[in-house]
């Protein structure tokens, strides 16, 4: 009996480890490539070997067109931070309304909100682009942050609604007896008890914003404003030398913040998802 159990455990570990290797290989390759000379670019092997060099990092850090790479990291960070703050505020306010306040047409509006979750973003892409262009928001960060400020991320509204619903109403009533209105309940009761869900919102918003390639592609044309995904593209030019080593080096560098945040907060993340009763 014991040997069967440990054999099953062994196979399970074997499977997990081999899958882990397959998952991890591309990252390991990127790491190796960042230390490799530009000429050995097409090599799918991991170990840089004889062509070890740190010139990729030096060159990459110098950035593009006089804009150092630190600037792109900073830009990405600023945009992500604003998005996180905007989402946290707007989505929780909206979720509170749907979860805790009874108002006319609540059901209909909730259904509409869910419907936007399934709306393909590309339907509104062109008019949104025209609108933002008319407002003069090209080459600004407004197209990134304002939609978040207006709670357009239905996924997080939904997540928070589910979470808020699980908080016992008696707490609300106790607060009401003490003289709290909705705002009071919101700030004093609901938000403090919702840390896992808020953390989930914050982390996923950060990761999504950090890796967002399409929005900067459309709205940013000034290199000084580039965020990391867009800046990385600038290292590859089809009309002159491409800076592969720099590309990989800076890709590795840009991975560290999101990876770090994920690793540091993954337990909170799982707790946040599991206690939102996605089950219905």
């Amino acid at each position, binding site marked *: 009996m014991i040997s069967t159990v440990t054999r099953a455990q062994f196979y399970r570990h074997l499977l997990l480890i081999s899958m882990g290797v397959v998952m991890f290989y*591309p990252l390991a390759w990127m790491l190796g490539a960042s230390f490799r000379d530009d000429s050995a670019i097409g090599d799918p092997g991991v170990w840089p070997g004889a062509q070890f060099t740190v010139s990729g990092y030096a060159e990459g850090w110098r950035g593009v067109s006089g804009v150092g790479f630190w600037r792109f990291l900073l830009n990405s960070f600023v945009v992500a931070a604003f998005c996180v703050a905007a989402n946290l505020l707007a989505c929780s306010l909206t979720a509170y309304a749907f979860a805790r306040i009874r108002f006319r047409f609540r059901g209909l509006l909730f259904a509409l909100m869910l419907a936007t979750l399934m709306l393909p973003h590309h339907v509104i892409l062109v008019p949104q682009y025209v609108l933002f262009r008319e407002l003069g928001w090209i080459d600004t960060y407004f197209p990134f942050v304002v939609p978040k400020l207006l709670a357009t991320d239905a996924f997080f509204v939904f997540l928070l609604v589910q979470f808020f619903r699980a908080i016992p109403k008696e707490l609300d009533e106790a607060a009401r007896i003490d003289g709290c209105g909705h705002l009071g309940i919101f700030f004093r009761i609901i938000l403090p008890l919702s840390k896992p869900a808020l953390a989930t919102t914050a982390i996923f918003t950060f990761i999504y914003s950090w890796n967002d390639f399409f929005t900067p592609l459309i709205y940013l044309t000034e290199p000084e404003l580039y965020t990391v995904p867009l800046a990385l593209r600038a290292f590859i030019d089809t009309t002159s030398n491409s800076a592969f080593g720099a590309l990989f080096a800076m890709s590795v560098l840009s991975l560290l913040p999101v990876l770090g945040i994920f690793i540091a907060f993954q337990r909170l993340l799982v707790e946040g998802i599991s206690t939102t009763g996605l089950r*219905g």
Partner: protein
Amino acid sequence: MTATIQRPPPRAVAPARSHSISRRENLAGYLFLSPWLLGFVLITGGPVLASLYLSFTDYSVLGSPDWTGTENYEEMLTSDPRFWTSLSVTMTYLLASVPLVQVAALTLAVLMNRGVRGLAVYRAVFYIPSLIGGSVAIAILWTAVFAGDGLLNGLLGAAGIRTDYSWIGTPDTALWTLVVLNVWQFGAAMIIYLAGLRQIPAELYEAATVDGAGPARRFAHITLPMLSPVIFFNVLMNVVGAFQAFNTAYIVSNGTGGPADATLFYTLYLYQRGFVDFDMGYASALGWVLLLIVAAAVALLFAISRRLVFYGDNT
């Protein structure tokens, strides 16, 4: 927070009756909701309707919209083979990657759920692909792996199959390299499954084991039904996401959707017509057709879910 109170599905929220809601409640509700309402009208609803209008025009960025009636839609349906190509590419991608991603995510979540040592490490390692998947660096790697003289063929050669077939350069298989790329990023779905699995009460499994149920039966009769809302959520999000997939196709094919349109995702085609050819009217029309298709798919999924999804409170 350990209380996991079952809640009915959102659609079952009954519309409140007006006479039992005080004016103050109403006001409070709309005040809290005001950012969302503003966003819904200006950022979502307004542009949806505007895009409907633009889809009936001929509009390039350097000019102004010219009303052309249903010309865009006619062209799309009768004289645009690339429209059908992009639809077929997207559907193939969707039908292949969604099941694969969900099966991989669920399988690994189940494997890891039984208290594996180093769970946190595995979780992070499996999630990493989701973090770096959309980057230019990965596109280069993917070409290096799937090219005629790439790593995959090298491995096949070591196993005795000598070939110089270019998986990524040949139209027949190019799309499948992108499917693999998507499946490789199953970590995000896996995390959600892990969270869902944690919520299934251990007593259920214990009772079943006492009754003599083996692992397969326990999986089929406890895990799957209890997990079905999560599965539904994951599949729904995955399907909607697959219809809108853009990044990987754009980066790996260098924006072309090639070779020979083998990776021309619908949204990539929309982007090309709108932002490269500056045919914004046509791109809007494409967007609307996508909306209708996604709506149909979502309705279908909801209908199926009524039969298959088990919510804890027997609805």
